[in-house]
């Protein structure tokens, strides 16, 4: 059984219909990527899963349980971790405080994430422990938002465009970290525009455009599929 399952999800912002019958599934232990251009609907899919913009029709099933319709904090406590695209760390909290406020599900997890454990994954954060969120660089903010979400001990991590706007060196580092996070037993759904970044970390991928899924398959197949790349991805 899949860990996460979206069945014909339709989502609206006010009157505008954004997602059209989006269906996808993520198996336990996988890294799956959601690819698409600007405005394709990747973030909206994530917001539909985490419950910030709940779908109007369709279902989101997580670990066999219907989570669509639940409030975001409940979905988080079920084990879905959301890392938003615009690096929203709490600007007035220190790095450590940012991590502390997110502690969740320690009892349900066999070896829970601790501040020390995420510091070992992101040593840079430890150096900047006492700095405020607003004082960090873009790359550090990205690390902090990922680390913060890890503190909620998610079984599934929704990563929204983590590589956007980062220097190539940091992007390479990031790919490494995703692989290490996966090794800790966390399943990852990764929204990206950057196919090559996905190819480093993901097994399968979905391509989304104008709010509907256009392609589904192995990343390796996608790399060779010039038509899809041409049509739906900015290469």
């Amino acid at each position, binding site marked *: 059984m899949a860990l996460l399952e979206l069945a014909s999800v339709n989502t609206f912002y006010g009157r505008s219909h954004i997602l059209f019958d989006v269906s996808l599934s993520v198996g336990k232990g996988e890294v799956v990527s959601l690819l698409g251009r600007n405005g394709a609907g990747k973030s909206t899919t994530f917001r539909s899963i985490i419950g910030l913009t*709940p779908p109007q029709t369709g279902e989101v099933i997580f670990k066999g349980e219907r989570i669509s319709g639940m409030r975001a904090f409940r979905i988080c406590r079920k084990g879905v971790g959301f890392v*938003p695209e615009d690096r929203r760390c709490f600007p007035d909290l220190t790095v450590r405080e940012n991590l502390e*406020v*997110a502690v969740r599900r320690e009892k349900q997890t066999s070896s829970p994430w601790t501040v020390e454990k995420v510091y070992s994954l992101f040593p840079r954060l430890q150096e900047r422990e006492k700095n405020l969120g607003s004082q960090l660089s873009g790359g550090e903010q990205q690390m902090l938002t990922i680390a913060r979400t890890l503190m909620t001990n998610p079984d599934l991590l929704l990563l929204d465009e983590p590589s956007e706007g980062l220097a190539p060196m940091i992007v390479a580092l990031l790919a490494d970290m995703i692989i290490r996070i996966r090794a800790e037993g966390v399943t990852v759904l990764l929204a990206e525009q950057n196919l090559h970044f996905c190819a480093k970390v993901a097994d399968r991928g979905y391509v989304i455009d104008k709010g509907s899924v256009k392609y589904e398959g192995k990343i390796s197949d996608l790399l060779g599929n010039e038509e899809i790349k041409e049509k739906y991805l900015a290469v």
Partner: protein
Amino acid sequence: MTGFLDISFLTVQVLSALRLAAFLFLISSGLTLIFGVLNILNFAHGALYMLGAYFMFWVTSQVTGPGGFFLAMAMAPLGVALIGMILEMGLLRRIYIQEEIYQLLLTYALVLIIDDLAKIVFGAEYKSIPKPAFLEGAITLFGGTVPTYTILVVVIAPTVAALLWYLLYRTKTGKVIRATSSDREMADALGINMKALFTLVFAFGAVLAGFGGALAGPARTVFPGVGTEVIIECFVVVVIGGLGNLWGALVGSLLIGALETVGIIVFPEFEMGLIYLLMVAVLVVRPWGLFGKPLKIKALSEKNLSFESQEISPVHFSSRPWLWVIPVVLLLIFPAFAGRFYQYLLTQIFVAALMAVAFNLLLGTTGLLSFGQAAFFGVGAYTVGLLLTKTGTGTMPALGLSLFTSAVAASVIGFFCVRLTGVHFAMLTLAFGQLIFAIAFKWYGFTGGDNGIQGIPVREIPLAGLGLLDIGSTKSMYYFVLVVAGLAVAFLRRVRSSPFGATLKAIRENGQRASYLGINVTLYQWTAFVIAGTFTGLAGGLFALMERSISPEIIHWTKSADPVLMTIIGGIYTFVGPAVGAVVLIVLNSYIVAWTEYWALVLGMVLLLLVLLLPGGVIGFVNEKARDYLTRSGWIRRWLFSKSATS
């Protein structure tokens, strides 16, 4: 001026400023905390303060002596916290997804209700609260005599501030509160239970207000309505400091405490205006307050966008203009059937309706909540009043000039206000309004001060070649106001349905998108502000003519609430809504005031029910129901859809 260098005098003044700042801080820290997390500017915070003082009064009257005093000190914050929790869980919680204005209005309704309930339970008179003997006296400090109680207050407030700092910066809950106030949505997604946190924070804010009331009660006095005075001062404090920022509240309290103390000594005639002047000055330089940051949208979930069905009238007046003839004819023949009282009542309604319809060009059409419309009403009224009493100007030129002066006032005030949005906009308009109120109230030489202007002569109007038109009688005044206000309303309707109006609506729906489309949002908002202000001034001018006397009361901020209430009662997203609201409010008022002295209580209840049950107002409700009914048959549905698609 040697007095200022005197150390004993200085000691006394500094301590009295600190005492004032202490009270302000206790109340506004809770206010700003609630705003930071819940995003609600809680009008009822002053009422919670008042309840704290009444708790103090009640407990000390049951248990006398120092024991009773300290028991009361402990019980008042807890009692108020309990009330706060009930209010949040029972009422506020229901409307978080609504737009800001409904939340403001709900807390405003609570003020009306709580004030009148206090009047019923404790009576309207001022109550003084006994202090234990050891806090009664005064001590001598650097040669100045300072009440012992002042020392207590000045010591306790910083202690509370330190405690607050500890709670917010050293405890997990405090960190969660700070996180939530900077990004509510993110906090939600990280598993923080907003519902529980909101209740907690509201209750905690209530504790601070209750404690402030308990501490201030014995030093000041308590009476129904004291909260309304206190809350406005605290609004000034938190807006100056930056909404939602605790340090802002601290600095704001100290600034206002100092300014009021110095103002009383140096500039007593304008003491009241000084704090508004400071607020205007701060906001002009730093629109988000000294420590504030621009608010980003921190939606709890998508805002309630279900009003479209209410906005569109099921009957299309524009396609069936003759439908307008019916009400017009009814109004024209009305005086033939109704006596002078009803003619007068209707004339009042015309003036109020004009003000409300003009106001709604800002709120309903453009999405800007002005809390200072009374200022333009006052400018118009005083222009007519002063010109007619002090000069020989004719009635029509005076009325014309009232359009001009209020347009000038609105252009200037609007220039500063439209740079802000939401609550900040509302607060800046309120500050400008109070500034104009203070001028009218204190400038005896020009405006007559708090006496106002009496006996305004209403001169006959020369009609080219047709003699003179006398509008002195109730009936002729009725027709005169009907025609002038009617033309103005017709003009405003044209504005709303013009391309200009459509652009305003686009700005209301999504200001960001509008600006991406190349629309100069600020310019459009400013123009709407000026049009609304100008016609509000005209309403004021008509008011001066029909009443023949005016007083600064008409400029007070509580009068600015009138068009807001009318609009909400009638329906915010419809053109006739505000006019219907004017009818409801004025008719209700004139009957209920005759029947009970608790008009505020009744109004508060009406508002509460309306906000909770009919957020689209009376007309919105009618439209929705009528549509439901009409759309049951298919051809009407098709007809409606083709119409609404174009509107």
